[in-house]
């Protein structure tokens, strides 16, 4: 299974349409197959991000805020979307692998010390 996480620094990015970086992780049987790889985007665009998700054949997208039309588009393309996630991407990925992640998950530690790390 391939998972795409929209990230900002060490955290899941607040908005799907305003991100500059994504992380793609491949896993099998709740284990990572390889070190997740990061892709820096040339520009922030929800449409281009949807294209990337399809091009990479991802099965799951984990993000923060996403507009309904992009959400529905990905769902139509059989991509599972877990949105409104707030937290450090490492922990989020672990939860996703363990099938514990749900939309709206808010993890502790998203204060300026952590989030500010990317500033």
């Amino acid at each position, binding site marked *: 299974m391939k998972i795409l996480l929209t990230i*900002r620094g060490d955290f899941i990015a*607040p908005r799907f349409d*305003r991100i500059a970086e994504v992380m793609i992780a491949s896993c099998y049987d709740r284990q990572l197959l390889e070190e997740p790889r990061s892709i820096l985007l040339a520009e922030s665009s929800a449409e281009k991000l949807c294209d990337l998700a399809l091009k990479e054949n991802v099965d799951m997208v984990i993000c923060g805020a996403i507009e309904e039309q992009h959400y529905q588009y990905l769902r139509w393309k059989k991509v599972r979307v877990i949105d409104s996630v707030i937290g450090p991407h490492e922990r989020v990925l672990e939860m996703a692998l363990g099938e514990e992640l749900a939309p709206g998950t808010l993890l502790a530690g998203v204060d300026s010390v952590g989030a500010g790390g990317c*500033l």
Partner: protein
Amino acid sequence: MDADRAFQSRLECGELLNSIPHGVALLDRRLCLVTMNRTLEAMTGYQALEARGVYGDYILRTDLGSNDQLSRQVLADGKTVARDTTIINTSRTTIPVHCTLSRLHDQQGQPVGLVMVLEDISLLQQAGPGLGAEVRSEIIGHSQEMEAVFELMAVLARTDAAVLVTGETGTGKDKIAEQLHQSSPRARHRFVKVNCGALPEALLESELFGHVKGAFTGAVADRAGMFKLADKGTIFLTEIGDLSLPLQVKLLSVLDDQEFYPVGGSTKLKVNVRIIAATHHRLREEVEQGRFREDLFYRLNVLNLHMPPLRERSGDVQLLLEHFVQHFNRVHGRNIQGVSDEARALLESYPYPGNVRELRNLVEFAVNLCPGGQLGIKDLPRYLSRQPAAPRLQRTAASLPAASALSGELRPRAWPELERQQIVDALLASGGNRTRAAAALGWGRTTLWRKMIKYQLV
């Protein structure tokens, strides 16, 4: 004890924030959310309790640049910033908002965080594309004169220059000013109306520019003036012709520099205000007679909008009549089925010295008096049918600034009035002989007789 006080203070703060009709969030110095009001909870989909301590950007989810640059800038330099942006809530809906960021200080003046006010502007944006076309929405009229006014308004709404609205009393100068503000880019800010003729000079100065504590007896606290309240918006100075000369000087300096001293104050206040002024006086004459400053007149008269009197708006009486009948039917819960032909003819031939306001009051009077069915002459105020219109016509016509001369007299432009006057003139010239008067007018005797009945000359 301290814990109780802190709890009480938090409760009071929460209540205060909840009374504000826009979304408000308080962020600490690390830009983490301290609290937000119910409006913002509804807008974002998050509860203040669960979001407390979380980095604000993750809860509000705006697109104000990446990594909160704007918040950090405001926190650093303390300058309030306002931007149009969007938020995406937990229901995945994008809400356009007007966001204002200001720095908060403690009692020692040290920055302690930020206050973020988010005003939902989705309705405003929906109305946005038709802004120019909607400029006339509140004002009724399809006469050539009003079409010219609407065209000019669409242009004036797009500029930021001062506007002087002139016209007789009751022509709708206030409505025009408000509509200009609503159609301008300043629409989301305040529209403050000040009647310059309603207050004595000393009070008006304090009203316009504010005062500081102790400036005069009774000034127990600082008070922001109307100019300060209208900052970033529009101030509408109605009856500007009644402004005293000393205040005219102060107003001129505000217009030139956009800054002023409050009464008794020593600190200059800077404002960004668009000025719309209105008067029923003929300001040029006032200038000639030394009652109005020439420099202020030219400063205000950057753009001039003249509201035509109702008697010059051919066809609009009919339109307004229908509108007011419908309006007062709704307001007073009546079911009046239009206006009878005789009453309509009477209302159309009346010169309306009080303009639209007078017509509105006439219709309200009639709607209240009418027992049902159609409005008839008997439902209209008696002075309409009793008083001959001719002397009134001459008096009001003489007050018209743009009227042209006909046979040595000034004439109105609306056809019914003109025709009536022609008949009166022809009858006077023929010594009351209808046959000779009809011949002079180029009509048959019957036509003259019919028109005399129409204009109530028999």
